[in-house]
C-alpha cells in the first residue's frame, strides 16, 4: 500500500507538469494580452512616425516576463534581415503597412530586446534610408538597455546597488545616441560611430556559446520562468493590485470553502437517508414519486434557481426576507462572534441551497442504486434468514457496502464544487474563488487564472488518489499490490 501511494504521488509530478504546460499554452496562445490599456495609452502619446514602445508597457511586460517567448526561445538565431523587415513594418516605411501589423511589429521589436541589437546595428550602418537609420538608432537606445535587477528588491546589498547604478549610467549613456531623420551628416556619423564602437567593445554580449544557446532556448522563456517560481511556491503577483496570488487565493478560498464544505456536509446528510429510504421502499408509489422529484431537482439549472430565489426572496418582489448579496454584512466590526456567525449563515443560505440540491439529487440516486445492488446479494439474504431484524439488516449489513460508491464520490465532489461555483458566486456576489477567477479572466490577470487552474487541478489529482485509496480501505477485495 505504502509503495503504491508513493508511486502514485511520484506519477503526479509529470502529470502536474503536463497540466501546467497545457494550461500555459492554451492561455498564452489565446488572442489578447494583459496590460493592453497600458500599450494603448502609450500609443497615443507617441510620435506616430518613428516611435519605440512606451516605457511603462515595456517595464510591465518585463516584470511579468511577457516579453519572452512562451515555450522555446530561438531569438539567438535572429537574422539581420528579419530585424530589418520588422523595423520597416514598425515605422511604416512603405506607407502601406496595416495599423495592426505596425503595432504588432513594434511589440515584437521591443520584445526582442537585446537579441535585436546586432540586426539594428547592421541597419544603422548599411541602410540607405535616413528614416530607417534614425528609427534603428532610437530602437537601439531602448533595446540595448540593461535591466535594473534590484530596483524592487528590498534586500539588495551595496554591491547590488552599485551594479545597478552602473547599469543606469550605461542606459543613460546610450539613450543619448539617437538622431532624427533630418539630422546633420555630422551628428549622424557621430552616433553611428559611437554605436559601432559600443558594439565592438561589448561584442561578447552577442556571441553565444552552445551552453548559452541551450540556456536561452529552454530557460529564457515564459514557461520556465513560471515554473522556476512555482518550485518556490511562488504563483507570482496579481497584475491588478500587485499582491501575491497565493495570499489572495487563501483569502478567497476561505469564502469558497465555507460554502463548499457546508454544501458537501448537507448533501451527505440528506442523500444517504433519502437513498436508503427509496431503496427500502423500492417500486412503491412513494419511491416513484421521490425518484421523479429528485430527477426534476437534478434537471433544474442552478443559475435559474439562483436567479429566481434572488429575485423573489431578496429583492422585495414580492419578498425581501434575505440579504441580496455578499458573504456577510458590510460592517461586521461591531458584531459579537455569535452575531457574526449568524450574519454569515443568513447570507449563505441561498447560495448553499443552490449548490446543494443538484448534488443531493444525484447522490441520493447513487445511494439508492448502490443499496439496491447489495440488497439482493446472498449475505443480506443470509442475515435475514438468521433472524436479524430488517432495520439492522439494512443499516448494518447492506448500507455499509451499498454506500461505497458515495464515499469515493466525496473525493471528487470538492474540486467539482469549486469549479461549479462560478455562476453561484456570480449571482450572489460571494467574493470567492469562482468570482475571482471569472473577473481575473476578463481582466487577463494571467497569474491568477494560472494559479486557480493549477490548484484546482492539484485538488482533483489528490481527490482521485484519495478516492482510489478509500476504495481499497473500505473494500478488502481491492488491493493495489
Amino acid at each position, binding site marked *: 500500500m505504502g509503495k503504491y501511494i508513493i508511486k502514485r504521488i511520484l506519477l503526479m509530478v509529470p502529470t502536474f507538469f*503536463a497540466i501546467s504546460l497545457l494550461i500555459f499554452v492554451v492561455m498564452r496562445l489565446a488572442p489578447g494580452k494583459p496590460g493592453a490599456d497600458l500599450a494603448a495609452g502609450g500609443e497615443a502619446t507617441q510620435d506616430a512616425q518613428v516611435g519605440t514602445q512606451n516605457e511603462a508597457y515595456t517595464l510591465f511586460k518585463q516584470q511579468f516576463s511577457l516579453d519572452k517567448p512562451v515555450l522555446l526561445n530561438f531569438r539567438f538565431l535572429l537574422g539581420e534581415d528579419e530585424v530589418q523587415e520588422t523595423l520597416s513594418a514598425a515605422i511604416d516605411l512603405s506607407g502601406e503597412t496595416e495599423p495592426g501589423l505596425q503595432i504588432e511589429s513594434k511589440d515584437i521589436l521591443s520584445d526582442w530586446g537585446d537579441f535585436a541589437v546586432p540586426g539594428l546595428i547592421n541597419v544603422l550602418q548599411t541602410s540607405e534610408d535616413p528614416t530607417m537609420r534614425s528609427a534603428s538608432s532610437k530602437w537601439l537606445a531602448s533595446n540595448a538597455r540593461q535591466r535594473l535587477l534590484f530596483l524592487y528588491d528590498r534586500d539588495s546589498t551595496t554591491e547590488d546597488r552599485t551594479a545597478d547604478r552602473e547599469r543606469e549610467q550605461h542606459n543613460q549613456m546610450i539613450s543619448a545616441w539617437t538622431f532624427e531623420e533630418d539630422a546633420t551628416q555630422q551628428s549622424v556619423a557621430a552616433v553611428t560611430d559611437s554605436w559601432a564602437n559600443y558594439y565592438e567593445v561589448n561584442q561578447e554580449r552577442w556571441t553565444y556559446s552552445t551552453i548559452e544557446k541551450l540556456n536561452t532556448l529552454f530557460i529564457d522563456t515564459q514557461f520556465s520562468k513560471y515554473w522556476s517560481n512555482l518550485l518556490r511556491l511562488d504563483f507570482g503577483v496579481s497584475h491588478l493590485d500587485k499582491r501575491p496570488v497565493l495570499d489572495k487565493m487563501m483569502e478567497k478560498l476561505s469564502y469558497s470553502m465555507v460554502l463548499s464544505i457546508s454544501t458537501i456536509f448537507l448533501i451527505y446528510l440528506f442523500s444517504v437517508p433519502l437513498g436508503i429510504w427509496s431503496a427500502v421502499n423500492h417500486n412503491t408509489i412513494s419511491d416513484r414519486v421521490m425518484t421523479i422529484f429528485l430527477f426534476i431537482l437534478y434537471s433544474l439549472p442552478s443559475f435559474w434557481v439562483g436567479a*429566481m430565489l434572488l*429575485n423573489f426572496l431578496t*429583492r422585495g418582489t414580492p419578498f425581501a426576507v434575505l440579504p441580496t448579496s455578499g458573504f456577510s454584512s458590510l460592517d461586521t466590526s461591531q458584531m459579537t462572534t455569535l452575531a457574526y456567525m449568524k450574519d454569515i449563515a443568513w447570507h449563505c443560505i441561498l447560495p448553499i441551497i443552490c449548490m446543494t440540491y443538484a448534488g443531493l439529487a444525484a447522490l441520493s440516486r447513487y445511494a439508492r442504486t448502490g443499496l439496491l445492488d447489495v440488497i439482493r446479494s446472498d449475505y443480506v439474504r443470509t442475515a435475514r434468514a438468521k433472524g436479524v431484524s430488517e432495520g439492522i439488516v439494512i443499516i448494518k449489513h447492506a448500507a455499509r457496502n451499498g454506500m461505497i460508491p458515495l464515499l469515493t464520490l466525496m473525493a471528487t465532489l470538492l474540486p467539482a464544487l469549486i469549479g461549479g461555483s462560478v455562476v453561484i458566486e456570480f449571482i450572489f456576489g460571494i467574493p470567492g474563488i469562482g468570482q475571482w477567477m*471569472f473577473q481575473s479572466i476578463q481582466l487577463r490577470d494571467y497569474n491568477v487564472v494560472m494559479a486557480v487552474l493549477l490548484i484546482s487541478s492539484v485538488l482533483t489529482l489528490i481527490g482521485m488518489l484519495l478516492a482510489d485509496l478509500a476504495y481499497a480501505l473500505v473494500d478488502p477485495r481491492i488491493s493495489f499490490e
Partner: protein
Amino acid sequence: MTVTTKTELTDAEKRIDAVDDVTYGDIVWGQFKKNKVAYWSLWGVGTLFLLAIVAPIIASARPFVWTVESGTTYPWFSSLFDRNYYENGVDIFFNLLLVLGTPMFIGWMIWKKNLHKKIEKKRPRRRMVVLVATSLTTLLFGVFAGMLFHESMSLFPGWIILAGCFGLGVKVLAAKRQVVIGLLAGALLAIIFSPILKGTLFVGAILAIIGLTYKSRPIVIPVVALIGLLLGSIFHPVSQEYVVYSDAQSALEEAGEPVESIFPVVPYSFRGTGFNPLEGPTPEHIFGIDQSTRDVGVRVLFGTRISLTIGFIAVAIYVTLGIIIGASAGFYGGKVDLAVQRVIEVVMCIPSFFLILTVIALVGKPSIFMIMATIGLVRWTGVARLVRGEFLRLRNQDFVTAAQALGFPTSRIIFQHVLPNALGPVLVAAAFGVASAILLESSLAFLGLGDLSAPSWGQTLQEGYSSGAWHLILIPGFTIFFTVLLLNLVGEGVRDAMDPKMRK
C-alpha cells in the same frame, strides 16, 4: 431497383437475414419504447427540433406576401438566406434544413409508402442504418462547412460543399444514378445563392428537367420543389437592405396607399427592437419584452435553434474525438494506450468548466461555433475512457480473432466489428452530454460570455437577473429546465434500455 432484388435469395442469405431481423439495436429500442416517459420525451425533443426548424414560419418580421401598388414581392422567402436578416450561421443552417428538409421529407414519405418494398427487399434495417448515418454525416458536414464559411455563407465555396453533402444525402435516398441529379440540384443551389453566377441558373434548370424526365424517381419531388423555389427567388432576389415591414405598412396606410400583406403568426423578428422595455406579458407579446426592447417569445423560440445546435454538435464533436482516441488506445494497447491514458488524465484533472470559461473569455467575442468547438475539445475524455474500456474487453474475443484471421484490415475490424459492440455506453454518455452541453452554453451566456448575435436563452435570463423582471427569469429559465429535463429523461431511458438487469 438493382439486379439483386430480382434474383432469388440463397439459403445462406436467408439465414443471415433471419439473424439480422432481431439485432441488438432492436432489443434496445424495444426496451426503450416500453419506458413511456422516455419514449415521449424523445418525441418532445423531436418536437423541439421541429419547432427550431419551422421557427421562421411561426415568427418573422418579413411578410410572406407583400402587395403594394408597385407590385407583389415575397420578402419572407428572400429573407431565409439573407445574412442581413439572419446574422447567425446557425439560423442560415436551420433555414436550409427548412428549405431542403421539407421536400426531402415529403419525398421520403412517398418513397417509404410506395417504393420501399420494391426497392428494399433485402436487409431493410441495414439500409436504414446507412440512411441515418449518412444523413447525420451530411448534417455534420453541413455544419462544418457552415463553420468554415459562416462569415460568408452567401459565398460560393460554402454552397459547393453543402451541395456536395446534399448530393451525398440524395445518393442514399435514391439510386446511385440519381447522385447526378442530386449534385445537379446542389449545384443549382450553389448557383442561385451565389450572386455572381445567378445567370447560369436557367442552364442548370433545363439540365435538371432533362435529368428528371429521363428516369422518374422519388427524388423528383424535392428537386421540383427546389426548382420552384429557385425560380421564385430569381424573380425576387435576396434583398440587402433591412426593411421593417410592419412600420412600412402603417406608414403606407397612413398615406392612404392600399397594402395587402400576409405576415407570420408572430410578426416580430428575434432582434427587432422598439417595444416597451421590460414590459410584462400582453396580448400582443404573450411572453413580454426584454431589456433591449425585443420580443422574448420570439427570442426563446429562436433560442431553441442555438441550444439544440450547441448541444448536439458539441457532443458530436467530442464523441467522435473520444471514439477515435479511445478506440485506438483500447485496440492497440501497449504504448499507445499508456500515452493516451496520460493525456486523458491530464485533461481530466483540469476542471472543465474553468477551462472552457478561460478559453471562451480569452477569445473575447466567441461565436456559437467557437463555443461548440471548445466544449467538444475539452470534454472528450469521458467518452474516450468508456470506449477504451469496451475495446480492452472486446479485442480478445473470438469474433475479433476470426476477423483478423480472415485478413480484414485493422480499420475495418475497429469500425465494423468492434465499435458497434462498444457503442452502448457511449450512447448513454452522449444523451446526458447533450443536456449538459446545453446547460453549459446557457451558463456561459448567463455570465455574459455567449455569442451576442445569437438569441441564447441564458442571455435573456441574464437580462432578467440584472433587471429583476420576473418574466425574463421565468420564461427562458423554464425553457432551459424543460429541455434539459427532456434530454435527461431520454438519457435515463437509453441507460435503462441498455441495462440487461432491467430487462424483464
